[in-house]
């Protein structure tokens, strides 16, 4: 289990617990559940990398305590 912090810098900052083998899509669903947005409107970014839904966190090498940028589309 890892914890990832997601911040949209507009007032929402969410810390999500998830597994490393979860996909970004799963993560988005979790975030959506916590922030109250629709998960498919969420964009996760780290700098200019937009994370894709079907790829798992460990494949993106997202580790415990990492911060991701949260955007909406």
């Amino acid at each position, binding site marked *: 289990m890892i914890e990832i912090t997601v911040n949209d810098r507009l007032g929402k900052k969410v810390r999500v617990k998830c597994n490393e083998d979860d996909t970004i899509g799963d993560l988005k669903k*979790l975030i959506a559940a916590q922030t109250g947005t629709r998960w498919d409107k969420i964009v996760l970014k780290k700098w200019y990398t937009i994370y894709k839904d079907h790829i798992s966190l460990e494949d993106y090498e997202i580790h415990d305590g990492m911060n991701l940028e949260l955007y909406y589309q």
Partner: protein
Amino acid sequence: MGRGSKRPESETEEGQWEDDDPPPAEGGGRSPLARRPTSGSRSPGSSRPDNEGDVISSDEDFPGPPARSAPRPRPRRSSRKSSDSAEDSEDSADSAHAPGWHRKRVKDKKKRKKSKKDKKKKKKRKHAHGEAPRSHSASGQRRQRSPTDREGGSTPEVAEREEEIETAVPVIATRRRATAADFFQEEEPEPRRDRSRSRPAPRRPSRSRERAHRGSRREERAQPRSREERTREREREREPRELKAASPPPKAPAPEGGSQKILSMSVAESNALRASLGLAPLKEKNAVDPNGTREERREHKAREEFARAQGGTLIPNSTKHEIHKAPENLSQKTHAEKLRERIQERKKKREMEARLLAIKKLGDSDSDEDRRGSSSNWVERQKKIQAEKAAALKRARMLEELEDDFGVGHLVQEAVAQDRAGAYGKKDLSGLKVEHSAENFASGRDVILTLKDSDVLDASAEDTLVNVNIMDDERTKKKLEEVKKAKVGYNAYDQEEVDELTGELKRKNMLDKYDEEIEGEQRTSFKIGHEGDYNEEEQIERQRQKIREKLNAAKRLESLALPELKVASDYYTSEETAQFKKPKKKRKVKKRILRADDLLADLEADSSANKKPSKSPAPMDRSSKGALPMDLDEDVEIKFEADLDDVKLEDEGDMGLEAALNRARKLKQKRENTDVAEQILEEIKAEPKVKQETEEDLTGSELIGTFEEEEDGHQSQFGKPLIMNETVEFCRNLGARQFNDQFERGQKIKQESSVSKDLLEFEESLTSAAGSSGIADRSSTKEPHQRGQWEEVDNNDDDSDFERDMKMDVDSHGEDDMNNAAILEEEPDLQSGVAAAIQLANSKGYWEKEEKKATGSNLKHLMAKNYSIDDKMRMDDERGGRRGDRYGGGGPSQPFQEKANYVPNVQLEYIDDGGRLMNQKEAFRYLSHKFHGKGSGKMKTEKRMKKVMEQSLMMNMSSTDTPLQTVEKLKKKQKESATPYLVLSGNKINPQDLKK
């Protein structure tokens, strides 16, 4: 209250705010002290369950507004600077994200008013209640921090914060039970999370520090819970309706968060959420509480095993048999399926290929061993072969012995010999040419010779044997030699070369370097001998023979005796004349073939019977010209004979011919200009003969015909009846008319023909003879040609073609003989060649004969008189002239001799753009303007234009009239009105009235 979180600098502002804005402190204090309920999240096993239990039962209005303790998450940084406007904007941002929140905010505001009153009550209550010792300590802690805060300074407010914290807890507990659907519908964040970061900003420790505090906070929270509940319940009692309808939950006084809150969930919550989303539960390192009882652990283990058995993972904190089973990934499944299929396919293919490999291909050698190329195999094979050979030999010997025993040996030998005889062997090779020098074939060495490529169509090419390698050698040798020659270079003095081998001087021919080109490559060769082998001696002998022959040929005995002296004579002796004569052998043969000559000889008698003196030269003509057209010399010969009267011809076979010649001579003497006619006639006669010749060659039947002729002899020729039928007559008449027309035309132009009656007679006899013979065998081909030929006569005369044609008409188709000839010509045989085709075209009028001369004469007056080829070179002239111009020379390259005295009158005229002639001044101006590219100004040009106009008007003006021609008009008017005057008035006035 919530202000506690604010930094001191902002205090004044806040103070103001509080003044004009009704209690933001109260409502705005959104979860100022909201803490993470870490106790639950960190160790779900321990403290959580109890809380849950409590709260669930107590908290009835779960998803309702009270859940919201701090609806406004606030970024930490902004809280630091904490301008109110920033806060407001944040609010709006938040509400934009979560409209539900907005609603809450509105409610909050309403609430705020109330809570102002409540505050006081609460304060009182708190005081009354007193605080639990632990919470006291907690609040004490905070109090220590809060002195900086304006409001935080007061104890009651701190207590209230505490309260809020407590209120939040139960909500979270209920949350746990909520379904995923709830999570999605509810857009508000988990209240608990709000608390996590909403500690007072100024005091905020670093995260690690915060974590360190957590433990104590947990403890803090544990106790006041019961009290909290109580307060909440009280609040609910107070305004139960409002809660449901519009107002925020009682704990809505949730203070304005000083900093941004991080929303977070506990593991259990997360797991629940994940379960609702269909995700696997979180993997925890120590899912089992190490502190738990043994039984617990065992149970857990059992559950895990069960889960594993089911192919899923255990959901922690779930009821006994809840497991998560990952859904099948359909795409992965299909992908796997595809892969499996492909592998299967590949496998099959491999099998197939293996099977195919086992099959021997056409090109493969038959023996299996060949393919397995190992050397040991090969050795084995060789051994086997050897053994087999030995065995075969043995067997053969045994058989031989047996044969000997039975005495059949010689029979077998005979049979073998017979077989051998039939086979291709040595003797077949004898006489074959080998195109290499014998030196190339060393004895004891096998050389394989092949048949050389030769032209298939060349019948003379004999079979030649060559060896490819030797050929290559020769080629290189030759090339080397050439290189050597090239190195030597130009042999200026044509020095003799010395043969390297023999040391002799090489014999040189004139321009021997071209020998090869002219005669082709000279190759040494020898022939295979009689016995199919090469015998050197024989060869040498042969060479010697050759040399001998050559020497013999070169050897000529020169006599020293001088030729006899003779008296020079102007005339040829008879022997000499004899030299001019042709051997008569040929003639004899010809005579046998061609009977026409004989016929003509006989014709003489016939023509005399025809009441005409027998002077027909026909036989001569026939014999001389038509005998055998192949023999061109004959003509010459005969003429020669004609000239030499006194020379005696000793030819028995030519008696008839001589007679004919005599006759011809006489005829010749009679007429003056019959030479031409004669010649023409000769040719006329010759042509069909040629035709005959070819035809003879062509068909056997005709040959037979000629033989028949021979047998029949002269008599039969005229005995044959002339067949006339209707069709022939009709056609003849048709032709006759045609000819008459032509004839008349010819007469107009010229018919004082010098043709004597004799000629006509001769002609007649000739044609009749030809006609009769033609009827006998090939008249059909002969006659038409006679008639058709007139166009083709080639005349040396200066007469015009037309004239000649007419003459020909007259000659060949005189009134008398018109009947004799068949009118409709038979078509020439197209098979015989192009000439025949042309003839046909001519006769049928497929193409028109050009009358060049006629047209030439007609248009002669139009032709250029002084036309010269030089004119065609104008282009070149120009080019040359241009070049000359550059160097100051102009004009044609050749001087006009005939214009030597020519003095040109040069007048330069300048014309402006309008075509007006300019004077010198104007011309200069014009030129100048052109040169400078700049004309005079507008005014000046206009002025000039005007001037020009005037000038032109002046020029056009008549001297007797005004420019408007008034005089003329006046006259016209007077004419019209018939009065000598003209009334000048504006109105029309009748002249009659004027008179009055």
